[in-house]
């Protein structure tokens, strides 16, 4: 962990996080050598500190209670290219949600521009640069849609926020989590949380007070050269402007409808 250790309290907490992360591993190896040990009970899959869990629960409950919201987000994303050189790509996105089943996301980024529109019965994905869009039936709730997008490998901006708001199980793979301490994001006091799991370290900044929404997320991909990170700062609007056009998509002139092939429908990518 490359975190500041100048604060003694943080130092202690980080040690706790690291111990929490390694404890299940040690327990696991102990379990394998002791035949009489009951296998599952010995290993707790989640070791999130109680104070961190309180913040998480507060945020999750609040997100689940929101009906309409929109998030403006500025995100950066690292790409490690030859010789370990790290590039940073930028992206601005707007996500507007009307629960239970409507969503629009606009992404303008260095890597790609996309518009996603979900009206509760179909999902449209539009690529202005390619002058194409696709429309696929998708009945159900946002929760179902999120699962389908994750399965198809489609990257929807801030999908973690939607996922936590509908599923509330973002920490399912976490091996350790702590409350780091106080922080300020965009001038707003926040609680800073840190989590570790096998393939990623991630941090979350949750607004303090009566509006506990996530204000920032950082995801560090583990075991990649250069430790590439994704970072997004979020600005929330709980009274978004929603009108008849928000969740409808009218293809611009000359834009063509093309199929949406599930990953399995086309030949698998090179191994």
């Amino acid at each position, binding site marked *: 962990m490359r975190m500041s250790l100048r604060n003694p309290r943080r130092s202690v907490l980080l040690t706790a996080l690291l111990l929490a992360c390694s404890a299940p591993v040690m327990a696991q190896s102990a379990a394998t050598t002791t035949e009489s040990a009951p296998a599952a009970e010995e290993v707790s899959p989640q070791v999130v500190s109680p104070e961190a869990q309180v913040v998480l629960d507060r945020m999750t409950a609040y997100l689940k209670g929101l009906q309409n919201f929109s998030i403006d987000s500025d995100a950066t994303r690292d790409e490690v290219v030859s010789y370990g050189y790290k590039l940073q790509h930028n992206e601005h996105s707007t996500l507007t949600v009307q629960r239970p089943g409507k969503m629009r996301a606009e992404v303008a980024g260095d890597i790609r521009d996309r518009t996603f529109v979900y009206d509760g019965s179909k999902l449209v994905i539009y690529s202005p640069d390619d002058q194409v869009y696709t429309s696929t039936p998708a009945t159900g709730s946002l929760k179902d849609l999120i699962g389908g997008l994750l399965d198809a490998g489609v*990257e929807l901006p801030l999908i973690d926020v939607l996922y936590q708001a509908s599923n509330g199980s973002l920490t399912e793979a976490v091996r350790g989590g702590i409350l780091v301490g106080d922080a300020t994001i965009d001038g707003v006091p926040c609680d800073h949380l840190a989590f570790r799991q*096998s393939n990623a370290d991630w941090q979350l900044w949750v607004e303090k007070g009566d509006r506990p929404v996530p204000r920032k997320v950082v995801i560090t991909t583990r075991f990649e050269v250069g430790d590439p990170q994704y970072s997004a700062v979020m600005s929330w609007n709980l009274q978004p402007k929603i009108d008849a056009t928000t969740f409808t998509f009218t293809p611009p002139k000359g834009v063509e409808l093309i199929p949406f092939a599930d990953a399995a429908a086309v030949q698998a990518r*090179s191994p």
Partner: protein
Amino acid sequence: MEINMNNMNGFARKLASAAAACLVTASLLAIGISDASAGARGGGGGRAGGGGGGRMAQSSVSGANRSMSSSSRGGSSSYNRPSNGGNNSGNRGNGNNVGNGNRVNNGNVNVGNNVNIDIDNDHHGGCCGGGYYNHPIAAGVAIGAIAVTTAAVMGSYDYALPPSGCSIVYRNGISYHYCGSVYYQQSYSGNDVVYVVVTP
């Protein structure tokens, strides 16, 4: 990728990367890496190859969790996206620290060209109708079977069409790109718009 880098520790992977850089003409691994940097920026006014060939950071925890539980997809960063070997005049590259005639692009542009020449009979991308601002990709490098065999395999796909000899054919209201003896149809696959080999 022929080498599963996910299973190596950090030091081993650095070694592997260094080795790959030395064997640039010899291995697919090197092609993938050099292509990534060959197109740090550019390509018809946008970005040449950025966001494809390199190793991208995970952009969501839920996605990371999903990719852990299902091995069917390699995640967003595991494919080789060929870069635009012949088109490196990106506006983002002009006059900044990364784009023009700098460490990132030095040498690698040539490597990218060589790759395209060797594998694709001198395809240089940027061919078919433009519009690849965010997908500035050369034709046909090492995705599925298209690039390395002459017979396109049904259902395989690529990020761009061959650079010449393509015409648009309409059948039953659907447009196909007919290149040589192969029909391609544009399709969304995951995050990307690709060209799938089809039978109309």
